[in-house]
């Protein structure tokens, strides 16, 4: 791409060089000496090249994205679908027979996969709902005319720079079953220790708290941006009507930031249904498959464990497609609901 585009660029550089005096005959004379009408031929060639330049360049500029996406995004997705219909011979690293929907049948009746689906949704709900509510509250606080506004905005973003890997190790020490800070504290005030790594629901709470910790400030800033776009006069007239701060928030702010709310909900849905790092590293057993009894194995972790570790490529691919379809249909559902809500809002 660079070689084909460099040539015309260099050509024009000589033609438009202001220090070159009259560049066109100079350049043309050098290249096509001896022909009848060098100026004219050169002009025609340049015009033709310029027309192609105008037509082809946009496609040239967008092609790197589409080519690479085709290679690392689209092709793997389609190949996943293909693999999901075949048996896989693990001993010889070769594709086995076409077995139709058998992989799907296996996966959808595999108790571990079904458990992972429930875990995924449970962790997703425990992380997204409190997270968005807290982010809304923080954004509302940041939306006041604060002193040192930039300082506060930066401060709420601090956890975002901690990688999930480091975050889960830090929280793992806080949630440790024996000597973790939280359990020692609970014991000191006479409450029974919680088996964070064994009890299914509590392990989901622990994992959700790490996710919430990292993303609440980030989402608060997105919501803050939307709140800042709300015309301040609306608050003034609401205040004149006797509405208090909370009333103003409910009947002025919330309706006006709805598109951004839905954006936040959609993105946290897509991310929240693919949680992987936290459940894998929270596990301190050797197998690392989301707890000794898969209490907190998410579906992405299932795909990794069965696909990459155990090399059941067909089954893992079927699981990937099931999860993929779930995520996409939830995204589409979100989109449809958005359309419905906004249409009702405008009419």
């Amino acid at each position: 791409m660079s070689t084909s585009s460099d040539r015309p660029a260099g050509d024009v550089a000589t033609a438009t060089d202001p220090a070159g005096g009259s560049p066109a005959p100079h350049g043309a004379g050098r290249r096509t000496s001896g022909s009848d009408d060098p100026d004219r031929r050169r002009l025609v060639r340049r015009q033709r090249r310029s027309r192609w330049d105008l037509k082809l360049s946009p496609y040239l500029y967008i092609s790197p994205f589409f080519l690479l996406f085709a290679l690392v995004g689209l092709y793997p997705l389609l190949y996943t679908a293909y693999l999901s219909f075949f048996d896989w011979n693990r001993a010889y690293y070769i594709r086995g027979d076409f077995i139709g929907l058998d992989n799907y049948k296996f996966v959808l009746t595999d108790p571990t996969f079904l458990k992972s689906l429930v875990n995924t949704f449970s962790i997703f709900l425990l992380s997204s709902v409190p997270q968005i509510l807290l982010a809304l509250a923080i954004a509302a606080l940041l939306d006041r005319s604060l002193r040192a506004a930039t300082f506060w905005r930066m401060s709420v973003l601090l956890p975002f720079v901690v990688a999930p890997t480091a975050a889960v190790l830090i929280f793992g020490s806080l949630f440790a079953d024996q000597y973790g800070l939280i359990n020692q504290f609970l014991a000191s005030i006479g409450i029974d220790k919680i088996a964070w790594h064994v009890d299914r629901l509590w392990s989901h709470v622990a994992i959700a708290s790490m996710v919430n910790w990292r993303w609440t400030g980030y989402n608060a800033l997105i919501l803050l941006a939307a709140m800042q776009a709300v015309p301040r006069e609306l608050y003034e007239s609401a205040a004149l009507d006797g509405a208090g701060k909370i009333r103003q928030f409910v009947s002025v702010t919330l309706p006006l930031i709805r598109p951004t709310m839905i954006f936040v909900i959609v993105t946290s849905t897509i991310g929240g249904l693919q949680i992987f790092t936290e459940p894998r590293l929270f596990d301190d057993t050797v197998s690392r498959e989301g707890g000794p009894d898969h209490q907190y194995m998410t579906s992405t972790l299932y795909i990794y464990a069965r696909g990459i570790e155990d090399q059941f490529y067909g089954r893992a691919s079927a699981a990937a497609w099931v999860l993929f379809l779930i995520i996409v249909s939830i995204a589409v559902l979100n989109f449809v609901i958005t359309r419905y809500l906004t249409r009702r809002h405008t009419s």
Partner: protein
Amino acid sequence: MSMQLRAGNAAKGRVSTKRSGDRPGFLVYGLLAAFVIGSALPLYWSFVIGSHTKGQANDFPPPFLPGGHFLENARRVLNTVDFWQAMLNSVIVSTACAVSVVFFSTLAGYAFAKLKFRGSNVLMAFVVMTMAVPTQLAMVPLFILMRDYGLLDTLVAVALPTMVTAFGVFFMRQFLVDAVPDELIEAARMDGCTMIRTFWTVAMPAARPAAAILFLFTFMMVWTDYMWPLVALQKTETLQIALDRLALTGQGQTTDYALVLCGAGMSTIPLLLLFIFAGRQLVSGIMQGAVKG
């Protein structure tokens, strides 16, 4: 862009000072401070425990101030995993991806924002759609692909899937629509500039503020990624994989949290520095992306 943002805030500040009684009171500052301290505590905790001995790490009540064993723990981290090599690998991969994403996104974003061509609307809709597609789930074929081309366990394999992102194209398009006046492009074309030269001299300089933000976010995204390096690498390590191995080593009858949290703290220092120097850009990037998205 950040200038526009600051100007906008200044204007808002002026309006709100006219409104009497909007100055937030202690309650607002108190709640915010509580949230900020609460979010900073886990990170602080990692440095506190990371600077105490293994035995002290399980004490209750816990130590509240950093101790004097950080260097000792750091040495143990360096003896357990090849920390510097892992960090170098992370720097290489993150930088390569960020440069590539910024360049290709600016190129494509410029085409979508400013050039007229057949199918541009459909193709842009496709780009937006792919943002919602969880391509990471297709890890098995991507793994097979890397294995077949002998790329497993190389940094190329780690970087390849993030050389372009749909978000990058979308982000640059949204920015360039307003940032580059059409007249400037026409003027450059009138002067005889080829398309690529117009892009290089008109769009690239205008794209700089958004490019900086996109660079930061891509860098952070690749730096903090754990799943794909775990799939693509075997002996080679990025920082997150090294941290994973450190955690495995630290596990025993009682986990060696002094070692593990010292490593977690050490691995966070580079991004912490980035946050201190470019936090303002991160904040405005998130807010900008939200408003336009």
